[in-house]
């Protein structure tokens, strides 16, 4: 695996340079592109594709890119990071599908794109990676669709594309196509293990509560009490968060909701409060009838999660040394630790990679399913380790 990075302002130059650096090794099988949405994306993708004709290319726009290659380790905006995965032990297949309602929506897109799993060689280790439009609705439907297509034996990783927090349009790449509202999927089969680590770094506060009323991503009541009031009271929110939407959102950034899962929690980012309805508006669905906690965190807990996710991914590789890591890191975690904090996070990723390259991006939502059937996360770090 090779990783190249460029911060050249010109899309073609940046794409070409990053691809060239990534393609140092022989026999490339897959190119993954993470870049700022401010680039001329068709030109950039074209330049990357021309660097390795015939090699499948996937990628997306981001809310920040991170990379470790050689001695260089950094995270920032307005760059392009290209990953090249290669060697004889891999088999790769790619597909994409439109998630537009008239094409069957997110679930159908997940199902269709994940069909690439039937195109790879039957090797002992598999993973399905998806890149989706983070602004396109209920991403749990993508998980359901992919699960229907690949079943329990294939784990899922991936992330939702970003646009540097402009929240207007995100882009997905497949080949030289630049799309919106698409699901791009990569089936990776390998004769060596593939490891997945998932951690969010938030701590539970208080007792679990029952989601007694919700509708999609709106959470009305917890234990039959208005969700907003319970949230503010139990977490001891500052006075201004009771009335000021901006103050509330600042507070909510470090106080997400955790949904009970066998493997821990699935985190739900609390995006805003409806002061009139006394409800919480989350970034993804909160199903009625489930158990939930309020959560809190700080830079230290976020960075501890980085360590834990990396360890979990690497342990799964057994004795094999990692060829590289791919990280899907929530933009909200970046918000908690700040720019200095993310530098420390990338340094830790580099330490775990132990000389192997790392590529990743800041996401609008993360995918990871290893157990059960669900696997859409918020404010979480997902690490894929390749051996």
């Amino acid at each position, binding site marked *: 695996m090779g990783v190249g990075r460029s911060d050249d302002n010109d899309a073609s130059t940046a794409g070409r340079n990053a691809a060239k650096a990534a393609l140092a090794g022989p026999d490339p099988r897959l190119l993954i592109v993470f870049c700022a949405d401010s680039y001329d994306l068709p030109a950039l993708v074209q330049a990357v594709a021309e660097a390795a004709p015939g090699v499948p290319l996937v990628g997306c726009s981001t809310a920040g890119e991170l990379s470790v290659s050689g001695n260089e380790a950094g995270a920032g905006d307005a760059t392009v990071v290209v990953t090249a995965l290669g060697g004889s032990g891999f088999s790769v297949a790619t597909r994409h599908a439109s998630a537009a309602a008239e094409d069957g929506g997110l679930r159908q897109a997940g199902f269709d794109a994940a069909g690439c*799993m*039937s195109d790879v060689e039957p090797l002992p280790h598999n993973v399905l990676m998806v890149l989706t439009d983070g602004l396109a609705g209920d991403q749990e439907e993508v998980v*359901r669709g992919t*699960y*229907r*297509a*690949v*079943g*329990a*034996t294939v784990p899922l990783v991936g992330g939702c594309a970003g646009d540097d927090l402009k929240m207007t349009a995100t882009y997905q790449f497949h080949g030289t196509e630049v799309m919106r509202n698409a699901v791009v999927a990569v089936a990776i089969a390998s004769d060596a293990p593939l490891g997945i680590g998932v951690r969010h770094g938030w701590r539970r506060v208080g007792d*679990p509560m*029952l*989601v*007694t009323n919700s509708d999609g991503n709106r959470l009305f009541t917890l234990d039959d009490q208005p969700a907003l009031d319970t949230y503010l009271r139990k977490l001891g929110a500052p006075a201004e968060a009771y009335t000021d939407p901006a103050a509330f959102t600042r507070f909510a950034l470090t106080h997400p909701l955790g949904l*009970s*899962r*066998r*493997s821990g929690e699935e985190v739900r980012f609390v995006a805003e409060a409806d002061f009139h309805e006394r409800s919480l508006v989350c970034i993804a669905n909160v*199903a*009625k*009838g*489930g*158990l939930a906690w309020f959560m809190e965190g700080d830079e230290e807990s976020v960075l501890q999660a980085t360590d834990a996710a990396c360890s979990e991914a690497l342990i799964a590789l057994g004795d094999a040394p990692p060829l590289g890591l791919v990280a899907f890191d929530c933009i909200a975690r970046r918000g908690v630790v700040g720019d200095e904090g993310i530098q420390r996070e990338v340094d830790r990723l580099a330490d775990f990679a132990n000389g192997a390259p790392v590529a990743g991006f800041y996401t609008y939502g993360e995918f990871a399913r290893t*157990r*059960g*059937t*669900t696997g859409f996360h918020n404010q979480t770090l997902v690490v894929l380790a390749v051996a």
Partner: protein
Amino acid sequence: MEPRRDWLSHQLSEFLAAVSAYPDELAAFEGGVERIAEAVEAEVAAVVVDGWVAASVGFRPGQVPEAQLAGVRMGMSTVSLPALGHASALSVDMEDDERNARVVVLRVDAPFSHEEAVLIRGMARVLALTVRLLRLLHRERTSRSQLQERQDLLERLFRIQRSISHRAPIDVVLDAITEGASSLVDAEVVALRLIDETNPDYLGIVSSVGVEPDVLEAIGHTPVGDGVGGRAVSEAKLVIAHDYQFDPQPMLQFVDRGLHTAMAAPVYRDGKVAGSLLVGSYDPERTYSETEQEMLLAFAEHTSLALNDASALEAINQAFADAVHRANHDELTGLPNRALVLDRLGHAMARVAREDGHVCVLFVDLDRFKSINDSLGHSVGDEVLVRVAERLHMAVRPSDTVGRLSGDEFVVVCEDLAVADAMRIAERVADAVSAPIQLYGRDLVLTASVGLASAHPTAKAEDVLRDADVAMYRAKERGRARIEVFDETIRAQMLARIEMEQALRRAIAGGELRLHYQPVIDTESARLVAIEALVRWEHPEFGLLAPDLFIPLAEEAGLIIPLGRWVIEEACRQLAVWRAECSPLGSVRVSVNLSARQFGDAGLVELVRSTLQAFRLPGSSIGFEVTESVLMDEAEAAAETLRRLKGLGVHLSIDDFGTGYSSLSYLQLFPVDCVKVDRSFVARMGDGGGNDVIVSAVISLARALGLDVVAEGVETEAQWRALSSLGCGSVQGFLFSRPKPPSELAADYSSGMTKPRCSSAMRNPSQSGVAASAARSSIS
């Protein structure tokens, strides 16, 4: 972590809401297994029915290990599957009476806890209930549609019989038969062949549907024995060809066109085979069911009937020709009378139907003719009619028929004339009538109201005449001395209005409406819990009319709004009276039915609000009942109206539940409190037709959604006991009390009592040896 106790019930009710939204069994299974897997975070969930995997999640399509899943033994176990490794397994029975159905759940690593096992069992049970309800409703609908088919056939045959007995021309009758066979047997091709009387070895096609002109020409005259229709004649029995081209003697023209199946039945005249009726289809999948074979035989029998009748008629016509002619003319004017007009009209219609032309009818009625008769005497009146008859003759073309139906009603039949041209004739007729008539030295000025109707290709002569009559009535209504052209709008408006509107309007304004009240009682204690107000019309002629006899008409005539308003106000007024009298009837809710039109009325909510205020009643003292169909038509608008009504604090029920779409899931869209199980289900409980299960499922699901259930139409103690054992909260029906006038109901309930004094039937069902709570364990 230990799950909380309330987690289970919430998960279950969520599951119920989700699966009851599915439209059919398979979708419910597919969605159900996905939800079950998610709820316990299992990798695999499946429904196994009679050893087959009906739905599953966790495997790639085409790679479901059916045998292993079907082989998972009941209860907890561990299994090992390729690629998945060791997994904990739980298999639970869905308790389906009709087949062996199980839910199988597999989870890697962690065994299922006791709570999770309970949850999965509950979900399996809910899934089974939902699916059973879907299945039963599907069957119910299928049998209803079969019934409908039967009904259609009978009606079609009845119409043919009527046109035979009304002496419609034979070709019209035969066309009605082939068209009827085409639509009811669903055949693209229909051909009626009869033996050529001049050459009895041949058959000629006398009526057909879907046979192209060139084919018709080629096979219009073929030897007896050729084709499926020919064989039906030579073999004198029903003949079916499932693969037409391989039939012994197929018609090559039909083979070329790709006719795939055909079936023919013989028809008889004077006891001998006289021809055959054939239906055919181009659909390669087409087969003919026993019902369809019976249908074709029925149509063939009616063809025989028509042929025999026609030959008899020929003889009669010959013998009584003169008498018939005499009977066909009006003595006063010498014009054809109603019978002859109808006959000529019928012939004209049959003629133009073949030639694709038009027939128009003018219905001419003299305005205020009665006043001439009254003021100048009948002899003058008769003279006027003779003069008008002459003028009408002058105003029309020689080929048109002018007739006199009765009194001052004339009719003109114009053949081969489009409506626009007939309009010009109508104008000439109106002008001719309105020119002054000189009689006994004075000028009489008359006008005429004219209705114009054109003959619909499939209409009967009487229908066209009636249409013209209705249009004439419209011309009168719009001020007389006018010409109006008949259209369907006129028909709908006129018929509904003329017959009922005035009477109903009088009834609403004039105090002929009554409210009768029927108690709703608690199933267990038999205490009064609510009262339903039901409107009656005390018609001066016909006596007390039930709402189904006048509400639909009130809807059509736009009278439902004032009628509905009266009902709401009267119910509130009566309730206020009971409350003022401290009657026990004043302590329970009175509910009122809302019709579709009323429900869609923008003023409804304000009416309810102001009426409640006027009678100083709390919202909770009044309930409204709407049917499912009302809600389904415009669900969003309906939900909004219900929310606004709910905002007034009133109680809301779904009426006649089970007769419409019957998905409980949509109930969640609406803020309703109660479901009323339709009387038809209650009436058929215990007949072994699955109604008990439907009622049971509705009750269980409704309760799980937190809704009350009222069973309507309870007439026997057995029904009461059964409903009690199913956990139905409230009941209503003749067993307890028929709907009664307020005074009678008040007499039944003396002060301080909430049980009627006089009903011998009132006994607590649980005292009749029924353990009332035995079946209450299902969901909650």
